[in-house]
């Protein structure tokens, strides 16, 4: 098991319960999607596995995070990335006042100079647009370019597990597709395990093996991507199937909930 989360409970400021007993697993080489609406607790899960909760006034109340079988619940982020898990947080967390080159240097801070140079060349070869704008401030890159830069940065941390939070946010549909394709390609090439956190279920389902659906701090559905796509409820509630009219779906939803 590359990453396993067991019965994780997370609170913010001691009172706001964001995760209420979440368990999930990512196996070696597997791509897993974590879907769910706003406020379901997806990003809290990302922060928890990355060891970043203290920075958000959050705390693990109960449960475990294990990385490669090793207890990692209360490890600090430096140790966690050292073990091979890199999380790309939501909201394009790159350094906007630095150039793409400097962003990549910061990301590859652990690499010896030669390896860093080669790694950067590889990133630029993959994303030629970044190379063209490599000396501009990253804050002025387009949303798609920023997302590519983030993926490049994540690569330079040499991860074994990549956790990506909402890479599609604010991108045009065509770009979303491109980001997903890139993720898929990277995963295959680098033999990564991937935990993809998304609201855009359709885009995510196209590239993953298994799915978890979260709602209000709990996992309410778990299964492989195919089953999810065939499951009526999941499709209607989370994956935005359009066959059910808006009014109908809403009434239905009120009646039937998992939680």
């Amino acid at each position: 098991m590359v990453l396993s989360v067991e019965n994780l409970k997370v609170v913010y400021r001691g009172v706001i319960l964001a995760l209420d007993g979440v368990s999930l697993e990512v196996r070696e080489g597997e791509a897993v999607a974590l879907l769910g609406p706003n406020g379901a607790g997806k990003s809290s899960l990302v922060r928890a596995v990355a060891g970043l909760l203290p920075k958000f006034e959050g705390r693990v109340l109960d449960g475990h995070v294990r990385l490669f079988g090793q207890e990692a619940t209360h490890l600090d982020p430096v140790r966690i990335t050292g073990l091979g898990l890199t999380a790309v947080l939501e909201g394009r967390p790159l350094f906007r006042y630095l150039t793409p080159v400097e962003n990549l240097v910061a990301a590859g801070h652990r690499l010896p100079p030669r390896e860093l140079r080669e790694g950067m060349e590889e990133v630029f070869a993959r994303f030629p647009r970044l190379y063209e704008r490599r000396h501009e401030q990253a804050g002025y890159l387009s949303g798609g370019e920023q997302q590519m830069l983030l993926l490049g940065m994540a690569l330079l941390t040499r991860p074994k597990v990549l956790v990506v939070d909402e890479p599609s946010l604010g991108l045009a549909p065509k770009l979303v597709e491109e980001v997903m394709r890139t993720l898929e390609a990277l995963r295959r090439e680098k033999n990564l395990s991937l935990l993809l956190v998304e609201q855009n279920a359709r885009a995510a389902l196209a590239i993953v093996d298994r799915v978890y659906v979260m709602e209000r701090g709990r996992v309410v559905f778990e299964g492989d991507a195919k089953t999810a796509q065939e499951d009526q409820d999941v499709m209607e509630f989370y994956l935005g199937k359009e066959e059910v009219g808006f009014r109908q779906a809403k009434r239905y939803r009120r009646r039937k909930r998992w939680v």
Partner: protein
Amino acid sequence: MSDLLPYLIGGLANGALYGLLALGFVLVYRATSVVNFAIGEFLLLGAYLTYTFALFLPLPLAMLAALPVAFLFGLLVERGFVRPLLGRNVVAVIMATIGLAAALDGGVQLAWGPDLKYLSGELPQLGFQLGEVFVPSRALWNLLLALPLGLFLLWLLRRSRYGILVRAISEKEVAALALGIPTARILAGVWGVSALLATLAGALLAVASGVGPNLVFLGLKVFPVAILGGLDSVGGALLAGFILGILEALSQRHLEPVLPGFTEALPFVVVLLVLLVRPYGLLGERQIERV
């Protein structure tokens, strides 16, 4: 002209000190967004450290020996006063540095006494005659130490991997943490370097005018210098140091006969005027907004 030159040289010499001290201040502000009101006390402590080492070492060695001690002191301050308060209200950190300043003021007087002391030993004489003007050794030492060191730090921050990490952390600490950057260690290092710069400035000041509790007032000059350069601009701090040094010297010569005491206020007046035109200071960064 030839009677102006000594003033300019003196101004540059003072400006080098201002620049050095402001550099340390801005570095910390930029990296950790902490306004260090104890920077004047860092300088004071540095001066006394140098004085103490100079009791049993030749002066150049004493100055060198004070630097690692100052660095350690910076690390300690970060650990003890700043890190526990990170993420709290900004005012909390400010109050902590003000409290630290008061404690250091008192502590230094307790340890070394309130009277003015003079360093034993001297830096090697570098002064020379340039035409009709004598260039004093003190000015040369200030410039020789401050300028290369300042430029080196600037280069370090702009080009080196360590500098890139400092800038990355200062912009978005969470993002840096997510990449596994050891932010705590790097920020502590920045405080160390800041204390080191203040100590060097203190030592140079002590060489020129002795060591006493009143050295702390140079710390006040840091604010106009740093603000003039742009609070987040390290290069700006260095530049503004020289500018204010020279302006002070000119005011000393031309304005003082007309407006006695004006030189004291001059840095603040200049800052006000500049901020009217450039609110972010001379070299401060504008915010990036993508809409």
